[in-house]
């Protein structure tokens, strides 16, 4: 399932030390594991339970999601620009699969 996350940096070029804001949205049902289907059987939980952001290979932010995160999870956070490089966002599903998105930041 090729889900393409939508990622936006508030600036593509930053001065060293600047704060860069990241906004990201990804399509996912985030099934809570609390709902029942038409036959009254519990629908098993299926959520993205982990989100990690690395910048130029260094982890800057991480979040553990629970079932109380809305469907199509949105996440917004900041990082301090230090070195130019890829901004890689990775979501991990309960089933072990991952959704990866990438942007680039150039730091002067």
């Amino acid at each position, binding site marked *: 399932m090729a889900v393409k996350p939508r990622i936006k940096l508030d600036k593509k070029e930053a001065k060293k030390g600047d704060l860069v804001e990241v906004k990201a949205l990804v399509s996912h049902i985030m099934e*809570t594991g609390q709902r029942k289907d038409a036959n009254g059987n519990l629908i098993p939980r299926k959520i993205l339970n982990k989100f990690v952001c690395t910048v130029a290979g260094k982890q800057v*932010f*991480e979040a553990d*999601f629970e079932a*109380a995160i*809305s469907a199509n999870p949105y*996440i917004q956070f*900041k*990082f*301090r620009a230090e070195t130019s490089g890829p901004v890689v966002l990775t979501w991990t599903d309960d089933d072990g699969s991952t959704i990866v998105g990438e942007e680039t930041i150039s730091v002067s």
Partner: protein
Amino acid sequence: MREGDDMTPKLNRRQALALGVGAVGASMFGIGDALAKNDAEDVIGQFTGGKTPIEGKITLDLPEIAENGNTVPMTIAVESPMTEQSHITDVLVVANGNPRSGVVRFRFTPASGAAEANTRIRLATTQDVIAVAKTNDGAFFRTSKQVKVTIGGCGG
């Protein structure tokens, strides 16, 4: 007159019955509310290792009234210089009226630059959302906010 006399007690009985049902309903709601409290405080206790967090330092931005509990915007910001020497490492968010207390745990690093994050959460009913922040030297801060939910967000 006679009919009227007949009617009056009948109506009264109905009213009395309605009142009785209402009262039972209300008291059941009361019990329901008490039971709805989940393990939020236990989860916070595990997170802090039994330490009592200090109130403050965290700005927890949530609407006072959420019309749709399926997607409630939440912003968290913790005062911190976010340097190697002094930074926020974790922010735990729990909700005490959801079927499960856990909402999210943010993990920051000095490279985060600011201990701020925004996401959208589900709230099943009117309840308190509690945020607890941990610093790199093991101090804890806590803030909570009540959100009134009009339509619950656990897709029943």
